[in-house]
């Protein structure tokens, strides 16, 4: 083991922040979406932030002779036949006519947590600052949502459609390492508000997004729904420090936002567990998912395929320390 000291050597292992805060969460808007809040406003959970259009389109209207692009415009009353009933976002004016970003029907974007509105950019997004803490993931599909957290599988579990029932309506489900697209579709149909999963493959992502598009295009629309992916595309057990946080949040109200991709907890009374010092997790290779204690650098080692990589010794349970590529390890904070 060649390293100046144990602590510096552990610095070579990538640090994964489990819980961060405070957070500035951003909600994307498209041209035609109408913000309902302004900078500096205080919002509570469930407050409407914006009206989102479903069937977005561009209309050509006479509009005002001079206005700033991005302004919300409503056709003046009494102009029968010309722009009657039109409203939307002014995009640009060409040949004395405005292109108007509009659509129908609108669906509300609700705040999944409380906070202060920091920035509103029509057609682009709005930002809310919150003192809430966030369990960080890597990706969120389908938008933002809020609900009571409920775990239905172990950290290495694989949930199938039959395991989700109507009792889960209104909750955000923790489903372990993997879930198939059919189960997500069923959860959506039963009124589940969100899914927290270790990994979600490309095929499942496409199916979720397609299902979401179909749902939003429907006459009645669907309540908010979001999938938070904690690890990546390949299914892996959820890391134990992450699972410990999820367990501590069981039964509590949480929100999912997509920028940053995270699970938000705005209850300051919840005590969230901190990871053990020296704990490392193997993220790839034959030991993927295993957790142990960092014992120090092992220097360059030869691994499968004749590849020589910098390695570290890791004690996994009662077994003697094994050499693991440094790049395949992560530690927690």
């Amino acid at each position, binding site marked *: 083991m*060649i*390293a*100046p000291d144990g602590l*510096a*050597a552990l*610095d*070579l292992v*990538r*640090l994964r922040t489990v819980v961060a805060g405070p957070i500035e969460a951003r909600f994307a808007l*498209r*041209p*035609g979406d109408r913000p309902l809040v302004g900078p500096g406003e205080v919002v509570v959970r469930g407050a409407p932030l914006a009206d989102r259009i479903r069937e*977005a*389109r*561009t209309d050509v209207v006479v509009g005002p002779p001079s206005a*700033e*692009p*991005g302004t919300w415009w409503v056709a003046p009353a009494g102009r029968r036949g010309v722009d009657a009933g039109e409203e939307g976002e002014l*995009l*640009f*004016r*060409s*040949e004395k006519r405005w*292109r108007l*970003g509009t659509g129908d029907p609108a669906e509300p974007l609700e705040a999944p947590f409380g906070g202060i509105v920091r920035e509103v*950019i029509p*057609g*682009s*997004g709005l930002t809310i600052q919150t003192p809430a803490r966030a369990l960080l993931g*890597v990706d969120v599909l389908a938008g933002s949502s809020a609900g009571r957290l409920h775990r239905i599988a172990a950290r290495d579990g694989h949930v199938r459609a039959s395991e989700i029932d109507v009792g889960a309506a209104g909750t955000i489900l923790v489903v372990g390492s993997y879930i198939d697209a059919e189960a997500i579709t069923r959860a959506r149909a039963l009124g589940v508000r969100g899914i927290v999963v270790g990994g979600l*493959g*490309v*095929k499942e992502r496409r199916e979720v997004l397609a299902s979401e598009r179909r749902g939003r295009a429907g006459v009645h629309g669907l309540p908010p729904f979001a999938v938070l992916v904690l690890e*990546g*595309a*390949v299914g892996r057990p959820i890391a134990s420090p992450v699972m410990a946080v999820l367990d501590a949040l069981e039964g509590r109200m949480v929100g999912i936002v997509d920028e940053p991709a995270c699970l938000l907890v705005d209850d300051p009374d919840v005590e969230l567990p901190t990871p053990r010092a020296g704990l490392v997790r193997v*993220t*790839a*290779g*034959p030991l993927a998912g295993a957790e142990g204690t960092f014992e120090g*650098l092992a220097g360059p080692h030869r*691994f*499968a*395929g*004749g*590849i*020589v*990589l*910098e390695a570290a010794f890791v004690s996994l349970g009662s077994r003697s320390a094994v050499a693991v*590529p*440094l*790049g*395949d390890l992560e530690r927690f904070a």
Partner: protein
Amino acid sequence: MTRAPSALAIIDAGRATTSVSLLTRIGDQWRLLGSLAAPAATPESTLLAILAARALQADPGLPARAELEPAALDAVPRLTARSRPPRTLVVLAASRRAGADLSAEALRTAWRVEVASTETHDPREMTELLLRRDVGAVLIGAGDPAGPDERAALDDLAALGGAAARRRPDLGIILGGAMRGRRAWLEALGENPPGDPARFLEVPAVRRGETAVRDVLERLLDDPADGRQRLRATTETLADLLDRRVELVEVGFDAGTRVVAEPGVAGADPTSRAIVTAEGALVPPDPDNATVDGVLAWTTGSLDRHRMGDRLRDLRGRPWVDAAGDGARLRLAAATAALARIAALTTELGSEPMADVTVVAGGAFATAPPAAIVLAVADTIRRPGVSQLAWDHARLLGPIGTIEDPGERRTLLGDLLRDALVPLGSVVVTGSLGMRRRALVRGRSRAGHLDLSFDGESTSRELRAGELTFIDLLPGSQAEARFEFSEAIRFGRRTRHVTVPVTGGLAGLVIDLRDVPLRLPERRDRRRSVLAEWSTQAWPGDER
């Protein structure tokens, strides 16, 4: 009087990994003591401390001992190159054809390119694109004069650009061809537009053989601390030092590079041609089906499209993970696909004669076996000729390129030449073998023979069309290879007899008698079997 430092740290802070190299002055020369790479967020001082500790443990009598002690490490001078996050360019055009012309030029830059035209997007969708936070600039272009398919939408596009300029004071706007000075643009922009007026640029229409659009786009990304952008300067210095034509190919996290440089003639400065392209990234941020298929085409495993998509997505998300075993093969398949994309975008460089020296660089190759790197280059950057391959294993070339002064750059690179570039070996590629007699292709008859003279001894071997052979030739050794073919082949010229000097390396001498360009079976199972046959020679210690 201050003493000249006898230790130097060279840091290549990439977006995926950080590489730190420790140098010491021995006599009047800089020498490489060692290098270490780790995920990007790793503190550089930690990497340097570990390198210094290892160096002192290996040789306690190092002249730079005092400077390498833990307490003194912070004072070690550092030469650093840093990669910035990539930026997105939106190309707006009045027709699909015009959009394709513009994007073909934009793709040959480090911008990530998204194309929209009035035939494919409505004004609301185009506005949405321009308001996206990751979009750094928009190129709104048309022919000059505008084509009949463009004329109807020019004013709308100009007005849309003007409105975007008012809404986003940070957005760079480049007007090309007939879009320049258009009244609709000026009206939409209005008086006193927000932001810096220097963000509005004008370029001529895209024309074959002209690079005005590309030059402007590259200028917008110019960053003197970016190692990838400075690889061109290093390659020129290298060509000057070696007095050889040098080609450099690089595959990194966000982009890839291809540079061809020649030494100056009669005291003139060296010259070069270079392309840095975001298409050359190891894996793009959101790999689409074409990317997945491109990587599948170079794999010998049995992953289906979905599972390959999952693996590539994870490789993009955590590029330092899973670098051994199957992960190493996947990584190299992705790097090979990236090299193929770079080759497709740089056909004018590919049509030039093979360079005397080919340098392979970039984090994508950081952990690959040397022979597999050679095979990846031979598969993609191929033309008839002979080239000596070298590997920038410690990622020194980018940081060295950030040295502004050519003299200083030359001195440091001259000192480090042997340490910075690991010899991989020589590659001999012939073209058109078996074109006249198909029996040669099927391996039924001998296509020629090779006499390899090395250290006073000569060995002979038969050659067959389409074969790929790795012959052991130690690093540093020089030999002469004499080929005699039963029919004329392409080797710069058409000939049956070729005699070339070759040098050894970690992969030895590679005789590549496959087609130029490489033709692979269409059927996936046959293709895999052919690739597997070649890769067994390149992946030692692999039992599969």
